[in-house]
């Protein structure tokens, strides 16, 4: 079961994470879950083997601030989520423009479940 989950809004995401960096939190990874009408982004952290998580829910199609400016290592996983879920990250330090995990020929946002979401993802693609 998940403990130590902090729910934040997309606007305050960067501040929350920036506050963690100097405290010695290690960024483990980012998990994106298709929550129907929303994307659930779960940022996992570790300090002394203790897990903690930051959760953000954003409506599909919204733009999420990138934390790669704070945790440089987050750039890769954000690119992956961008490919697989069609989430658009803003301020990525290294942006593969949806050509990270998937080639041009591959389906768009294949991890997204519903057709609605696929459409939203495609809308995100248009914006890029």
């Amino acid at each position, binding site marked *: 079961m998940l403990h130590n989950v902090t729910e934040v809004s997309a606007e305050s995401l960067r501040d929350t994470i920036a506050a963690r960096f100097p405290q010695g939190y290690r960024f*483990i*990874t980012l*998990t994106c879950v298709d929550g129907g009408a929303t994307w659930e982004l779960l940022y996992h952290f570790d300090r002394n083997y203790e897990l903690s*998580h930051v959760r953000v829910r954003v409506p599909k199609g919204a733009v999420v601030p990138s934390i790669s400016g704070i945790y440089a*290592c987050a750039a890769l996983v954000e690119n992956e989520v961008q490919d697989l879920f069609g989430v658009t990250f803003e301020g990525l330090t290294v942006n593969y423009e949806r050509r990270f995990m998937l080639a041009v020929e591959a389906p768009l946002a*294949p991890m997204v479940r519903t057709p609605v979401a696929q459409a939203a993802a495609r809308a995100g693609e248009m914006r890029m």
Partner: protein
Amino acid sequence: MNNATTSTPRRTVIPFGPQHPVLPEPLHLRLVLEDEKVVEAQPAVGYIHRGIEKLAEVKDFQQNVFLLEHVCGICSFIHALAYCQGIEELMGVEVPARARYLRVVWSELNRLHSHLLWLGLLADAFGFESLFMQIWRARERVLDLEEQTAGARIMLSTCTIGGVRRDLSAEQVGQVLRGLDELEREFDMFVPVVIKDATVKERLCGVGVLTQRQAQELGAVGPVARASGIARDLRVTGYAAYGELGVNPVIETDGDCYARTLVRVRELYQSLLLLRKALRHMPDSPIAVAVKGKPEGEVVMRVEQPRGEVMYYLKANGTATLERVRVRTPTFANLPALLAILPGCELADVPVITLSIDPCVSCTER
């Protein structure tokens, strides 16, 4: 008159991979060199992305054990272990003691074969072919042990939700213990070379230095982090039977390729120790409990693989299929560190440095 001056690049640009003999796995690096010094290295991945996370939402939670084992052929057992432990936590299953010990046995066999494999490939990368041969010869003993105990050399398929699928007879335990003794003798044939040979040290010492601070900030895990002086080894948290067996992380502080090599070489002996302890003190109990019902809820499970921490995030909704299976493998966590230490090295060092993080692209991309 066409002006060629503007269009001719002034630096060497080469594709390193995806099809390249020193990288058996398809990883692509766009290397920019000045003379032979690397000034820029940008990776491209996705050559081996199979979409396992999506497949795991389609197959049921029992089948996933086998699917997730194929995330990686090197530490197959450990992937299955991480997943099973996650499901067990969701469903509140208590794993019998013997199963926990057997899980340690196979985990450590996996670790042994992975580290030996890596050591051999490293030798191949710096052009020491006979060392590679020697190490892989030793590695075959581990594979024999795996085959003897699990019925397969690579895909052990012995882990299952609620325990393990095979037991070891007393005779088999004895065989494994004898095999370990032989293995240790094999180690003595090459370990002094790896840590003492002048040409090897020339290729490893001071190459690809990752400072402790970099390692921390870039989130390095496993031997990469430990070689930079960070004591990060999830076996310390005591999953399976590690709590009873006791693990002290192996640490080096130099952060170079040599330190990473030393960490893994010392872990070889550590694994031997753990294996012997686990085999000698294996309690008697059933090897699995029956699992009823369906998982529900969210969980994060982490275990220590040969390359470091692997993380599974599982989200279940009370049906046979899971809602989300997320795998973050150690190489994914170590890639930023690799990219940080590549610039400035020589082209000849690229394979060595790349291998020094023990890259597993297959698990990185899933």
